[in-house]
């Protein structure tokens, strides 16, 4: 299940919806990304996420299918917000459900690494010195690259 939206989401309700009625699920791993008040040593007043809607939808559907193909998942939720967010606000949510905990952990980490490097979003931070576009990180590229040749464990 994929959603790209300006509104906030309810992690508890999303987790409930993902697992409800399926007693074949042994574990659910989730990750919530939040706006931090400090980035690269500077205080952040707010952040605006811009994205490319038609591309975002296609690419998220593709990566959801890829996660389902690599791991034996019973379900998968990806929610990404756009628009203006303040420190403490939720940005992104991924959750994966599987019979096995390892598959849930690995696939959730895979989705987050992928989102960081491939989801067409751009972040504009508001600092005391004005606005700045967040630069991509080499560490995120490295994190995403580790999935390229790594087979799923289960």
């Amino acid at each position, binding site marked *: 299940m994929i959603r790209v939206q300006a509104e906030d989401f309810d992690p508890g309700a999303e987790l409930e919806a993902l697992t409800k009625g399926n007693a074949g699920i042994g574990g659910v791993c989730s990750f919530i*990304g939040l706006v931090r008040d400090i980035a690269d040593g500077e205080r952040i007043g707010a952040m605006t996420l*811009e*994205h*490319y809607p*038609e*591309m975002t939808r*296609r*690419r998220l559907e593709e990566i959801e299918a890829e996660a389902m193909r690599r791991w034996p998942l019973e379900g998968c939720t990806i929610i*990404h917000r756009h628009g203006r967010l303040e420190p403490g606000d939720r*940005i*992104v949510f991924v959750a994966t459900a599987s019979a096995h905990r390892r598959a849930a952990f690995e696939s959730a980490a895979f989705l*987050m690494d992928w*989102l*960081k*490097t*491939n*989801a*067409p*979003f*751009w*972040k*504009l931070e508001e600092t005391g010195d004005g606005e700045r*576009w*967040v*630069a*991509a*990180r080499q560490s*995120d590229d490295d994190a995403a690259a580790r999935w390229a040749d790594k087979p799923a464990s289960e």
Partner: protein
Amino acid sequence: MKLVYFAWMKEKAGISEETVNPPATVTDLGQLVDWLKERGEPYTGMFQNMAAIRAAINYEYVKIDAAVGPDDEVAFFPPVTGG
């Protein structure tokens, strides 16, 4: 051909999208960028450092030598920072 821009490329362009009609000799992305730069600002500034720019054609990431045609939607943007 539809061009769309994001993040600082959109700011430098001053617009988020436009429709252009390059000559038939423009058949790949590199040629498209060269043709745009020949038109002067804002393109010369936008495409000054190609290492800092990523592209997509019809919502798929592509490399600079990707083929491009009149019916395509071409997007230019800096490296993404989602998640």
